[in-house]
């Protein structure tokens, strides 16, 4: 038995391969650039390198722009196209649109990164009010994001055209095909949202309109979708990897999977209010409604996680897997893609646990704008999404080029090291956030007035961050090596479980539900800690609203 996706990718035309490989290569460059910026910021915050704050903020801008916007979306674009082509088995349709999308995104990246090379660092959200005296630079910065948005409108159309062609031919749509449709649609929505948020600033900078006074509100909404929708891409990748790497299909059927993928449409957009809890003119009723709605933000991700883990566990137990955790050892951890995807699931548990602390409006005055925020979201952006995207590329690029990863025996440990680093970074960061250490400062010492513990925690953040960054770079370079002609050729191994074995009736799938239980207990602990700290503060405060 061979790997269906890899076989199909291996049969793609040279033009399709060139497109996907080019896009993947640029995505990996964006990732490495962004990580370099992140390392600089982490070292500066710990006081391990002497940077003036302005340089630190410039590195922070580089970090956010390169990783959050260009790595995440170029990689998603490349993987979406590869999976659509793999699903179709007959190559990409409307390839010109995909090239146009890539060209727009590449142009956007050049402009966004060029615009941050001097002047006031704008951070990745490009607040217009900070660029009142640098309108030309703001225009360049915003044109970059608008081009990215246009690229995200054009590129997924090629994926949709490919899927439609496949549906016409096959007469049906698999669960993966359905998920890819939804993913393509979400990329388009993200593209539209980017244009909606950043075009007004561009028009203002060009003198064609007033200053966009509602930029921060619009940003919060687009930011929510930009950092939650990649989680959908992540679970789709897990779903595909489960089939191609392990030879396991969902035991719950394609229709159930389709429902879960469609649930992202229902649950993610209305749950964005919690990003605005500190806004002074947000009515109290909206804060309460925002908290309650946000309780549902994890529903599709947790359900997809349960489907995948239960399906794998049942297959493993049917092949002799024993014990509560023993079956996990049967998985092919020697494969870097498996290691990356497996650790991504672990990191997601931490991310969801901590994210739920922030959805409570009463905790916003304690935690918003503190290091709690980067502490938790790196579990998502790095530990979950980026590791999953790298896992997908570790499967797709060797299939396209016929060349293996560089140093696979070493690189398979990179996800473990990245997770270890992330635990130090995120753990210390979250504690720092509870204690009040601000995010988005380069020197949090405040001339010696800040507690000494803050500095120690930033040391842990830096040490963990550097380990995480180096591990991620190692994995990225190993994947990128498949694009080089000198790399040795290697045939893809067959799926781990290459014989069809039906799960035994009555077999339990325990790890998924247990993981959810642990996540919920973690949420209780982390949220209760926040409430207890709030109550222990020697202050009684009411209001915070917009007054007359």
């Amino acid at each position, binding site marked *: 038995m061979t790997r269906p996706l890899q076989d199909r990718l291996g049969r793609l035309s040279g033009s399709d391969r060139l497109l996907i490989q080019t896009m993947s290569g640029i995505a990996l460059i964006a990732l490495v650039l962004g990580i370099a910026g992140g390392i600089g910021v982490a070292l500066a915050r710990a006081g391990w390198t002497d940077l003036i704050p302005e340089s630190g903020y410039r590195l922070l801008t580089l970090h956010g722009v390169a990783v959050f916007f260009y790595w995440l979306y170029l990689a998603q674009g490349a993987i979406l196209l590869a999976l659509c082509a793999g699903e179709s088995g007959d190559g990409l349709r409307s390839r010109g649109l995909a090239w146009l999308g890539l060209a727009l995104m590449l142009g956007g990246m050049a402009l966004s990164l060029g615009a941050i090379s001097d002047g006031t660092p704008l951070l990745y959200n490009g607040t217009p009010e900070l660029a009142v005296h640098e309108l030309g630079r703001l225009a360049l910065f915003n044109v970059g994001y608008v081009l990215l948005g246009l690229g995200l409108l054009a590129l997924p159309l090629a994926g949709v055209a490919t899927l439609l062609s496949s549906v016409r031919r096959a007469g049906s749509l698999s669960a993966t095909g359905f998920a890819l449709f939804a993913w393509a649609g979400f990329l388009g929505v993200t593209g539209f949202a980017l244009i909606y948020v950043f075009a007004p600033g561009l028009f203002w900078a060009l003198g064609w309109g007033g200053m966009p006074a509602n930029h921060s509100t619009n940003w919060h909404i687009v930011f929510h979708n930009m950092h939650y929708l990649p989680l959908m891409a992540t679970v789709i990748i897990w779903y595909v990897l489960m089939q191609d790497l392990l030879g396991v299909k969902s035991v719950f059927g394609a229709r159930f999977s389709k429902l879960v993928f469609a649930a992202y449409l229902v649950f993610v957009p209305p749950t964005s209010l919690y990003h605005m809890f500190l806004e002074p003119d947000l009515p109290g009723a909206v804060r309460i409604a925002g908290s309650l709605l946000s309780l549902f933000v994890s529903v599709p991700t947790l359900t997809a996680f349960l489907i995948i883990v239960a399906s794998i566990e049942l297959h493993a137990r049917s092949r002799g897997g024993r014990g509560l955790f023993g079956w996990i050892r049967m998985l092919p951890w020697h494969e870097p893609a498996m290691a990356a995807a497996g650790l991504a699931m672990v990191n997601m548990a931490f991310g969801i646990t901590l994210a*739920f602390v922030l959805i409570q409006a009463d905790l916003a005055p304690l935690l918003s704008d503190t290091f709690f925020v980067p502490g938790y979201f790196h579990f998502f952006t790095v530990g979950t999404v980026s590791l999953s995207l790298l896992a997908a590329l570790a499967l797709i690029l060797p299939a396209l080029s016929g060349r293996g990863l560089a140093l696979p025996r070493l690189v398979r440990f990179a996800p473990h090291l990245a997770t270890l680093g992330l635990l130090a970074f995120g753990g210390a960061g979250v504690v720092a956030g509870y204690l009040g250490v601000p995010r988005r400062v380069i020197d949090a010492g405040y001339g010696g007035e800040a507690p000494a513990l803050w500095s120690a925690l930033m040391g842990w953040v830096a040490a963990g961050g550097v380990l995480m960054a180096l591990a991620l770079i190692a994995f990225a370079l190993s994947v990128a090596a498949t694009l080089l002609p000198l790399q040795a050729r290697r045939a893809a191994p067959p799926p781990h479980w290459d014989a069809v074995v039906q799960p035994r009736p009555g077999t339990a799938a325990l790890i998924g539900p247990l993981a959810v239980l642990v996540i919920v207990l973690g949420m209780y602990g982390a949220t209760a800690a926040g409430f207890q700290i709030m109550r222990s503060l020697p202050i009684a405060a009411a209001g915070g609203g917009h007054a007359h």
Partner: protein
Amino acid sequence: MTDKPHFTTRRGFIAAAGFGGTALYGLWVGYGAAPGPLAVFGAPHGETAGGHAAPVDAQPSKADTLTPEAFEARVRDFVSRFGEADGSVRPQAGVPSQTAKSEAATHGSHGGHGAHGKQALETHAFEPALDAHAHRAAAAPIDVWLQAGQFFFEPAHLRLATDQPYRFRMMATDVSHGASIQFGAGGRMMRLRPNQLVETEITLQRPGEFLIYCTYYCGPAHDVMQARLSVTEGGAA
């Protein structure tokens, strides 16, 4: 050996477990941070997690909105009234405000705004006297005017008393800022949007020296935007 699927592998169980995160609602209700299930039937909402009443949001009123210039005038007046020799500011009750008095007089001479002028005079010009011993907890709040700008707080050093309510009236007068009062192990922050007057009533319960810093990135010197809060028992020097 059974032919039936284990309950953990049924779609209904998986779908229900996917809603696991919503279980956090119970904790929120326990801490009074969310309305209980009976709230729809009119049951009262408890005390909030911060140990205080639910935030009261005063909706902006265009006619009463302070311009940044007027706000800065208030801050200058506040500093001049309560400024001390070391540059710190120690607000107290019962000290008349020249700005408020003159504004009240101005408004009073403009027919339709007379009522507002009178209210301003009552609220700000002659803040109610404080019976420090008998009625401190119930005392009327003393106004504290705090301006946030690139890259400063004005005043930069406040001296306040424990157990005395203060009404912090804050405004970011250029770009967005934030203000967090740090207590060493946790803090309380507020977001300040440009030219929006934000009001928060604060009572400090422990003496000490506390850091106030800007929480919202406001430019290259954001790191140095800080102030000091000195809190003493009963406002002792």
